[in-house]
């Protein structure tokens, strides 16, 4: 957690890179194909996450950043970058 907080300092305060780094690390345990995970990595298309795995990812993200991610936004989330941007929006 501290690591992510430190990264935020180099992020012009927006936190986007922090969220991205957090998600990339979290997704490693789902990286069955051993792809290089980055902004453009597709959660379903590249990593093959099931709906249950997506919800697990969402819950862990919510806990970590103390936010609630509405289900309404999920249809717009395809890549790691999409989710990082949504977290950024939710955290204002």
């Amino acid at each position: 957690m501290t690591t992510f907080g430190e990264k935020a300092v180099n992020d012009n305060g927006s936190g986007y890179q922090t969220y991205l780094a957090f998600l990339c690390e979290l997704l490693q345990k789902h990286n069955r194909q051993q792809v290089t995970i980055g902004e453009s990595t597709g959660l379903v298309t590249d990593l093959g996450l099931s709906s249950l795995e997506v919800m697990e990812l969402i819950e862990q993200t919510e806990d970590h950043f103390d936010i609630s991610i509405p289900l309404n936004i999920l249809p717009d989330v395809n890549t790691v970058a999409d989710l990082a941007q949504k977290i950024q929006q939710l955290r204002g």
Partner: protein
Amino acid sequence: MLFDKFQAMADFQTELSRRDVKPFGAITDEVISATEGVVQGRRVILAGTNNYLGLSYDPRCIEASQAAAAQWGTGTTGSRLANGSFAEHVALEAEMADFYGVGQAIVFSTGYAATMGMCATVAGPDDVILLDADSHSSIYSGVKLSGAEIIRYRHSSPDDLAKRLRRLGDRAGRTLVIAEGIYSMLGDVAPLQEIAAIKREYGAYLLVDEAHSMGVLGETGRGAAQAAGIEDDVDFIVGTFSKSLGAVGGFAISRHAILDTIRYCIRAYIFTASSSPSVVASVRQALRIVREEPERRERLWDNATRLYNGLRELGLPVGPAVSPVVAVEFTDREQAIAAWYQLFDSGVYVNLVVPPASPSTNFLLRNSMSAAHTPQQIDHIITAYRGLLDAGLATPKTAA
């Protein structure tokens, strides 16, 4: 291609077609009683129905239904808001309201329509819905139509619910919390006392789906909210007539007078034909029986305890507590399917549940008990499960 998304389901159906009986949509040739039938040529004990009180074959309900068909005809051919409000529907609404001790009730054509319709209507675009992660499909379908902000809380976790209400700040007062009395897949009961306390603390509203708990729980059978002693905290209850009441249809009740206005805003109520009078009449009779024969609930729980203990003593992975729904979990898909077939061949019909209908990546053989099951039938079911262990088609919990 438009149809590509259906290929995985088509492949699954093809796989199941290797046998003449399919776990999904097996055809019942004959119903012998509330607990026995002939399914595709085989006489089986029905252990996969939701006929909790065994009323689907009660002669009083059948007689009431027949009389109503003779009096009112076979169908209403119209919406409740058009030509489809018969005296039978209005009488059932009054009786449901009286049963729950509230002023308002709405009768729907199906339980799915009741739950989906209420969840789609009570909260709107400026509101928030907090729903349990393991909510039934009708709840998910409804909230999606509501236009509200939809947030899940962890299954039956009051702490997670409280955390999410805290995050909402002032918006908590415009939030509808949704829980189920008994969850349909694993049979677990929601921690409604804790949920109600949190709802009170944050000034939110609470809707409880009593589909599997009405007639099953509570001193007079009103459900999990009554059993938990928190009915005054519940703003809306929805439920079904297709389980403990043995027919088809759904309902919503509320202590808020506004429910009578909400009815004119529910699309699933307005834009569909009302229930057949014969169905409504059988529900009215079944409701009288629920009120007059509490011993049926006792028998149901005795039966549930007998099955639950029997399966647990075999070492099978069942839920943490006795419930009329007793689910046996499997981690292996092929094993679960093979187990279903062996149970069927042993004369026991249960429900096979596969993800995402199950609440995890596990597969379920879902058994549901009825007050009408005999001890001998339950012992037969337990023996059939022992056969699964003998055949290596189930894994004892201790060995998992």
